[in-house]
């Protein structure tokens, strides 16, 4: 990442040209997408979470976990599922051109582009907000909400004046995740032809072969992300998470009348249908048509590729995360702590940016040693580790904080070496977190697209690149088979995550 930022200051020949022509468009596209997707995810996530957590209506229990499912669909696959959405608008565009002008049509086309992309992105990204909002509504603000009722506030007033302000820090955290995902998306924006930084990076690097220019764009994107991260910190400032230890008693949910219950069901159905049911059924339908053609030996070999790479990076990431989290505690030093914080920043960095950074490091290493690292599997796995370290680190670190701090102290006090307490205490105690961490990284690697596209060795295909390639060749129905495989694998941790949350509630 530092490598990329550093290049913001280095010279590049095409830069002047790019700055004048395309940079503004990329910036505008990225920002519109971020604002739109962020707002829409916020609305869907918070409203569904409120309904499911605090209201009682038929089907509430089912919606509670169904609403998480869109998380299993990567943004680019959602976009492919709706590939013809914009085409359907073509008659309208033609009508505008014949009745008004060419400019009006271009304007309308631009106008339609963003809402469609935003809806598709928000439909699969809103669960990030939903999950945290639901958790805070059910667990954290419980007692305060009861207090508000006894003080004479009705449901609406309680929501706006108590529950929402209390959940604010968590919700902002969820929105931040949505924004990071939006900024790092490549497949969906490429498909809908929205100019963003990620599409810019690809265009500059792959079509024009201009690594310096791509680096510059990556640096701009990083600057934008840092800006959002600071904004997030600022918005969360002053609000600590309140952990209510006595929140065991369930909240008495608001009973909804028939009309309101109907509206609530509708409110939960819409995101579920757009974000999960419709894409899944379309893909399944296409897959049933094309399975005979696509399920050949190459398909099995690329599935094997995906699984191998994902397994290696899942295991390696967990080992590194465990090492980082443990050494931060054991050495209790500033440097190790800072390394930890730096290492987990990788998740905020879009795959395309990491790929460019790794490319650069690999090229420098190529000239320094005789090894060819560029486009090797090693570089690819390394990039996955950088990108997903935070995913594995988070559960391990919090598990260690919660379960192991005192035990490690006790072991030390009994004169036991650090290595022995790592193997005999921490690893057995953290078994769940370790499994979860490697599972999450495994799935994220399977889904990952932009980084894989840039760094994969020649002729090395995975499920995600195959999906992308087929879609790019306008063979969307054919791409549905690998896409479905990815979704099915992704469902595993989503369901597991939901179980975990439910378990912690009891």
């Amino acid at each position: 990442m530092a490598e990329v930022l550093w290049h913001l200051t280095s010279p590049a020949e095409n830069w002047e040209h790019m700055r004048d022509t395309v940079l503004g468009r990329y910036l505008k596209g990225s920002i519109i997408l971020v604002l739109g997707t962020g707002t829409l995810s916020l609305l869907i996530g918070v409203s569904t979470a409120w309904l499911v957590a605090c209201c009682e209506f038929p089907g509430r229990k089912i919606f509670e976990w169904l609403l998480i499912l869109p998380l299993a669909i990567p943004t680019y696959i959602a976009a492919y599922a709706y590939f013809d959405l914009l085409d359907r608008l073509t008659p309208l565009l033609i009508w505008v051109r014949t009745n008004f002008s060419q400019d009006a049509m271009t304007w309308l086309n631009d106008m339609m582009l963003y809402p469609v992309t935003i809806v598709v992105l928000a439909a699969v990204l809103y669960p990030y907000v939903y999950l945290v909002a639901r958790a805070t509504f059910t667990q954290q603000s419980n007692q305060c909400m009861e207090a508000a009722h006894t003080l004479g506030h009705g449901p609406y007033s309680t929501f706006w004046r108590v529950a929402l302000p209390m959940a604010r820090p968590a919700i902002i955290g969820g929105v931040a995740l949505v924004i990071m995902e939006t900024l790092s998306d490549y497949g969906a924006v490429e498909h809908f032809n929205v100019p963003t930084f990620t599409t810019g990076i690809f265009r500059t690097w792959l079509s024009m072969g201009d690594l310096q220019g791509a680096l510059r764009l990556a640096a701009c994107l990083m600057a934008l992300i840092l800006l959002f991260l600071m904004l997030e910190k600022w918005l969360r400032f002053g609000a600590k998470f309140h952990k209510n230890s006595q929140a065991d008693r369930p909240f008495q949910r608001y009973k909804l009348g028939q009309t309101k219950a109907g509206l609530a069901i509708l409110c939960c159905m819409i995101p579920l249908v757009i974000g999960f049911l419709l894409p899944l059924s379309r893909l399944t339908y296409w897959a049933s048509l094309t399975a005979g053609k696509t399920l050949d030996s190459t398909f099995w070999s690329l599935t094997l590729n995906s699984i191998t790479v994902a397994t290696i990076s899942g295991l390696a990431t967990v080992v590194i995360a465990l090492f980082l989290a443990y050494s931060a505690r054991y050495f209790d030093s500033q440097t190790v702590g800072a390394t930890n914080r730096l290492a987990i920043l990788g998740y905020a960095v879009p795959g395309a940016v990491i790929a460019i950074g790794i490319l650069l490091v690999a090229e420098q290493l190529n000239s320094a040693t005789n090894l060819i690292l560029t486009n090797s599997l090693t570089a690819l796995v390394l990039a996955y580790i950088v990108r997903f370290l935070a995913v594995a680190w988070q559960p391990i670190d919090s598990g260690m904080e919660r379960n192991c701090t005192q035990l490690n102290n006790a072991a030390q006090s009994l004169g036991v070496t650090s290595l022995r307490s790592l193997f005999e205490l921490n690893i057995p105690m953290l078994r769940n977190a370790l499994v979860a961490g490697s599972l999450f990284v495994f799935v994220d690697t399977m889904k990952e697209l932009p980084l894989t596209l840039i760094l994969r060795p020649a002729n090395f295909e995975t499920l995600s690149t195959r999906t992308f390639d087929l879609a790019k060749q306008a063979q969307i129905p054919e791409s549905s088979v690998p896409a479905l495989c990815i979704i099915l694998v992704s469902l595993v941790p989503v369901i597991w995550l939901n179980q975990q949350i439910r378990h912690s509630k009891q």
Partner: protein
Amino acid sequence: MNLLALQTVTKRYTATDSPAVDKVSFDCEKGEIVALIGGSGSGKTTLLRIIAGLAIPDTGKVILEGNTLNSPTKFIPPEKRNCSLVFQDYALFPNKTVLQNITFGKGATDNPDRIIELMEMADIVGLGQRHPHEISGGQQQRVALVRALATSPALLLLDEPLSHLDPELRESVRNQLIMLFHETRTTALFVSHDIEDAMSMADRMVVLREGQTEQTGNPDELYRRPASRYVARLFGKTDFIPAELLQETVHSIPGKNDLGQVVPVRPYQWRIVDKDFTGIPVFHGTVKSVTNRAPHRELLLDTGQLQLTMYLPGNHVAKCGDTLSVIFDSEN
């Protein structure tokens, strides 16, 4: 030679706040049982963690068996120190059985006979194959204790050893601990906020207040001759009577804001006398309240100048508004 010596140990958590531990010095002799007493935030647990090596002091020295453990230039990690800490919540390893817990420490398996002996003494012989969550709180406490003793530490540190036990269990565990310490000739340093625990177990007490040593001495000394109002109050309700109002030459301490000397008087040191009693100063007052605190009744007497707290003898009847005369009886 002292087994443990602390020399002007200071520890700050943040640069701006007052230190958690402020220039504390005291010694521990071999075989002694020492209690660190103080309210919450007095720095007692921090001090214990410093000795165990789990916290690093800013300045000062910690010396154990003649070896410097902590000094401005030196830090011996906890696992290399010849002392063992029993945690307040026991910190038993949940993934290991009781026996595995006990034999986990360094050198714990060197002497199997000692382990059996310790387990017998602590009455946990039958529990070896169970996991920590399958045994009771009192048993967990004893397992933690045996686990610490199994490493044959020169010094045993205990953080609030009795705080998690209910009152009934407390009494018996307390006696068991004293017995165990004496039988194993252990030098122990324990932290407590409960004066009763400290009084009954310790040979010597160190009273901490806001990170500083307030007073050091054996329990009797502290009880009879507290050095400050803070120490006097540790032992329960105490009235502070200006020394000039009492004729007797008794132990007195500086009063509030250092205004003259005051004498600490415990509730049962007041004796009810006839109204016309003479010889020593008599306090006359009206009864403000009577509270039943079985086995005594506590009575608040207002003399106009002072509020006196006293226990009413069993045969006495008094109600609000009555007038009473009392004298200070230091022998009581």
